[in-house]
């Protein structure tokens, strides 16, 4: 992990760290890389991925409309909303 990669990750995830936090995280990444090496040493070539911890079956439900929320309800907690729209800064000049 280098500072360039960490900066890219911050941009991708829309998060900023302070310089101190960046240094702390880079130290953590180094430790995590060592842990990942231990995992890498385990032979999993013939092991399937385990996405679900319990056996899952696909469930198909009836296509019946249930209770839905109104636009007003959904916008009640919007930081800024007007005339039924969520407000954000101007995107196109």
């Amino acid at each position: 992990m280098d500072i360039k990669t960490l900066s890219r990750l911050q941009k991708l995830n829309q998060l900023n760290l302070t310089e101190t936090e960046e240094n702390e995280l880079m130290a953590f990444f180094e430790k995590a890389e060592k842990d990942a090496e231990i995992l890498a040493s385990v032979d999993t070539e013939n092991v399937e991925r385990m996405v679900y911890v319990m056996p899952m079956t696909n469930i198909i439900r009836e296509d019946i409309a249930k209770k839905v929320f109104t636009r007003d309800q959904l916008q009640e907690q919007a930081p800024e909303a007007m005339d039924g729209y969520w407000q954000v800064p101007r995107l196109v000049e």
Partner: protein
Amino acid sequence: MKVYITKSEATGKNIVVDDMILTTDMPTTAGSKMLDGYMSLFEAQAVTALKENGYTICGKANTGEFNLDLLGETSHFGPCEENGVLKGAAAQTVKMGDAMAAVTLEVNGSSARAAALAGLVMMKPTYGTVSRFGTIPAACSGETVCVTAADVDTVKEVLTALKGHDDKDGTSLPQEKCVLGQAMPAKKVAVAKSLLTADADTLAKVEAVKAKLIANGVEVVEIEAEQLLLAKSAWNILMSAELCNNVSKYDGVKYGYRTPNYTNIDELYTNSRTEAFGYLTKSTVLFGSETLSEANYFKVYDKAQRIRRVISEYLTAVFAEYDAILAPVCSKTEYTVEETAANKYMAYEESTYTAPSMITGIPVVVTGGVQLMGAPLSDAALLAMAETL
């Protein structure tokens, strides 16, 4: 001591739920500035089930941000601590006698640790037997709604009310698998030697439980269980990757915190998330994002999924021979605010003990300050075993 985010005047069969579980009459914050004051339009299935069974919700317990941390130290509202010693808030309400039980979302072991340190009984049931509908998602493939109380009977009673198939949860198991049922007495228990890395006081608790099991006629055998040591790194990878996706929706537009410091949409997104999330959440998101990158996906994320199967198959083999695995829940009997401030990744390190059950979804009962892990759907057997201790 910041125990509650919201305290209700409820009286009766009081249950406290942690702030990862949605309620419609009280805010749900996930311990985060991002959701400070957030009121959900719907409630969690766990809350509905509790109400339908005559329980009342007496408040929302303080949690660490998205329950990722050690014992709630990362809550935006301040940690639940006494003289600098961390107390899990939900467990504390039970300890204080405010609630007969606490219902919490276990993500990275904080509920188990809090119960163990407070001398309470806690059960994390088999994944899929209690609905997660209406819980704030953090690490969906392992997180589980669990119950903490002063005794086994109360845990059993509340768990019986919570368990059941729920169409609204895609990972919910069929109803017949959700029933707690009856259990045969335990005959053979394994002690995981690889996890006996805790301090002397904690190991003494393991020894005390071991002695009681033997006195009850249970054969106790030490096994190496080296495979369980892989769980910590693998769960940290999977949990981080899942958290990264789950919190990507918090951007300051539709609900939640919006920064006042922006001049364009990118600044709105970035500054809202930067100002609202705590350090542990931010670093977990960034770590998760890196594990999912093109360069690391197969090397790290995919590998962790395969390691999950390695651990699961190992446990299947162990549980074919033993009724449970006995191990510590944490490495010490006390954690301070100071320690967690100095080592922000303490929760990652301490998950050595809790990650084996988180990554595989197996049930766990915490009693006498230690844990007993069991095979999937052996919840009733674990509770029966805990009852004899």
